């Protein structure tokens, strides 16, 4: 699948309406280069309320794109507008924007409360204390608010950054790898929070390089590869496209040859080859991974073969992207 839509779907378009109003976030033919290196090339999309994931492998250009969306970096060509305003030209646009940056450093001498107060004051919140308490509760940090940020764990710093981005209740929220550093319980809470923000009608744009992470909160996906918009649309549509392509699965068992032969016979595999790097391993190429995952345990039981491991060899995002980005490679 090459680039599909050039925009995530607007609410009006979804309802079949012909009169679309302006999208809150518009990226119009944006490119960015540093010397001879092209970081982002001719990217064009719109984002509407809800959670949209900016998905791409490390170095794909998604952080550069996020910086252009927030105005930290100016595009070499093209324009980025937030609520109709070119983002680099006005500071008032930041009343509507909250940003959770990827970098961890926060002023270490400040307490969590003081850091949030700095953000609330600069965002000119009308009731500063109430705003701070609201976001402290959102990220479950009220008990740690009086501790210095320098003493926080990575997960706590991540959560206080999220609180700071939300302290003025912005309508547009950008998050750069927001789940990084969170423990499993905190990840669940953060994912719930991201979904809640989307359900409240906010535009939430989350950058991530982890596909399995994105599918838990994003309705829309923008896939960035090599600085190009490789695909965009609903998560399900992109996932289905990925599933249409052959994928490689490693199966480690007590009898790999028998298992491989049977899978070929049953048309569950396109090809099978012994993995020389793994004793008992066989690499199966399949068009229908879900069916394969269901068939293998039953087959092993029938053949009286012991299974030790089944795992996809190309579930990494870089591999997944290769399926959706043939046209841009």
């Amino acid at each position: 699948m090459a680039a599909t839509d050039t925009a995530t779907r607007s609410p009006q378009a979804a309802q079949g309406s012909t009169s679309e109003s302006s999208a809150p976030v518009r990226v119009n033919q944006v490119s960015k280069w540093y010397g001879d290196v092209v970081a982002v090339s001719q990217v064009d999309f719109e984002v509407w309320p809800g959670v949209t994931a900016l998905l791409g492998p490390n170095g794909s250009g998604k952080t550069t794109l996020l910086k252009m969306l927030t105005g930290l970096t100016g595009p070499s060509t093209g324009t980025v507008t937030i609520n109709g305003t070119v983002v680099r030209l006005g500071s008032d646009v930041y009343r509507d924007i909250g940003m959770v940056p990827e970098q961890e450093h926060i002023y270490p001498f400040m307490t969590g409360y003081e850091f949030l107060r700095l953000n609330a004051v600069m965002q000119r919140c009308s009731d500063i204390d109430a705003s701070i308490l609201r976001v402290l509760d959102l990220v479950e940090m009220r008990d740690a608010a009086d501790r210095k940020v320098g003493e926080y764990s990575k997960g706590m710093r991540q959560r206080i950054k999220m609180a700071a981005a939300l302290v003025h209740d912005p309508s547009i929220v950008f998050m750069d790898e927001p789940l990084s550093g969170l423990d499993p319980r905190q990840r669940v809470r953060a994912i719930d929070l991201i979904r809640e923000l989307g359900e409240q009608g906010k535009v939430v744009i989350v950058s991530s390089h982890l596909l399995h992470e994105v599918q838990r909160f994003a309705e829309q996906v923008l896939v960035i590869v090599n600085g190009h918009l490789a695909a965009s649309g609903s998560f399900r549509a992109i996932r289905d496209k990925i599933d249409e392509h052959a994928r490689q699965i490693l199966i480690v068992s007590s009898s790999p040859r028998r298992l491989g032969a049977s899978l070929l016979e049953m048309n569950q595999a396109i090809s099978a080859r012994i993995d020389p790097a793994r004793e008992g391993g066989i690499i199966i190429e399949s068009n229908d991974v879900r069916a394969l995952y269901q068939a293998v345990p039953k087959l092993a039981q029938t053949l009286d073969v012991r299974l030790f491991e089944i795992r996809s060899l190309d579930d990494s995002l870089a591999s997944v992207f290769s399926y959706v980005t043939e046209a841009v490679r």
Partner: protein
Amino acid sequence: MSSDSAPIFWLTARQFLEGRSIRVVAALAAVPLLLGLIELIASGSDVDPRNMLGQSFNELSIPTLLPLIALILGSSALGNEISDRTLPYLVLKPWSRMRIIQEKFLATIVIGSIISIVFGFLVWGILCAAAGEFDGGLLLAVIVASVLAIAAYGAAFTFLSLMITRVLMAGLLYVLIWESLLARFIPGLRLLSIRHYVQSLFAHILGDATVTVEQQAAVGTSLIVLLAVTLVFIVLSWLRLQQMDLD
């Protein structure tokens, strides 16, 4: 001025006071005090505050110590935000970039001036107490020259920190080679140094022959040049912050 009305000023002041570089600033500002104490021990009650403090301020503080203090503070005011990648917390706000520059710059002047003046006041007080006469003109000259020097140098080094990453090295070379060496001994270059106008103003306020400055600039000229240099570098810093790509 509360922390809510000028949050970046207070943030920057805390960054200065809680960082390690403030100790270096204090050590530099304490050098005249140390020299004063040595002079006091050597001369006893025969000490001449105007001659001793006036000379050391003109020959050491203005060309070297005050620029170094301004370099440390001016370069870190925004430079540390860039290297620590905390600047997005300030620029992604409905807060003009000129306001950010102004508050950062104000913190540089206030902290740098307070530290310089406190140590200047101490050495002045000790020497004057030993001599038995309090020279108000000398104190005024020290205060005015300190504030204007830190303002002009601070603005220049703030701008430099937005242009290059090795600002301390570049600033050090500028202070030691240009301001302390070339501009002191090459007559034509003298007029292109901040130091010359601070020294001219210092000599004017002292109003006697204690300090003499070659090609001394008039009071008005010195004030205009120093304020213009400060203003130009503030505007350049603002323009640079508007245009630069941030991490």
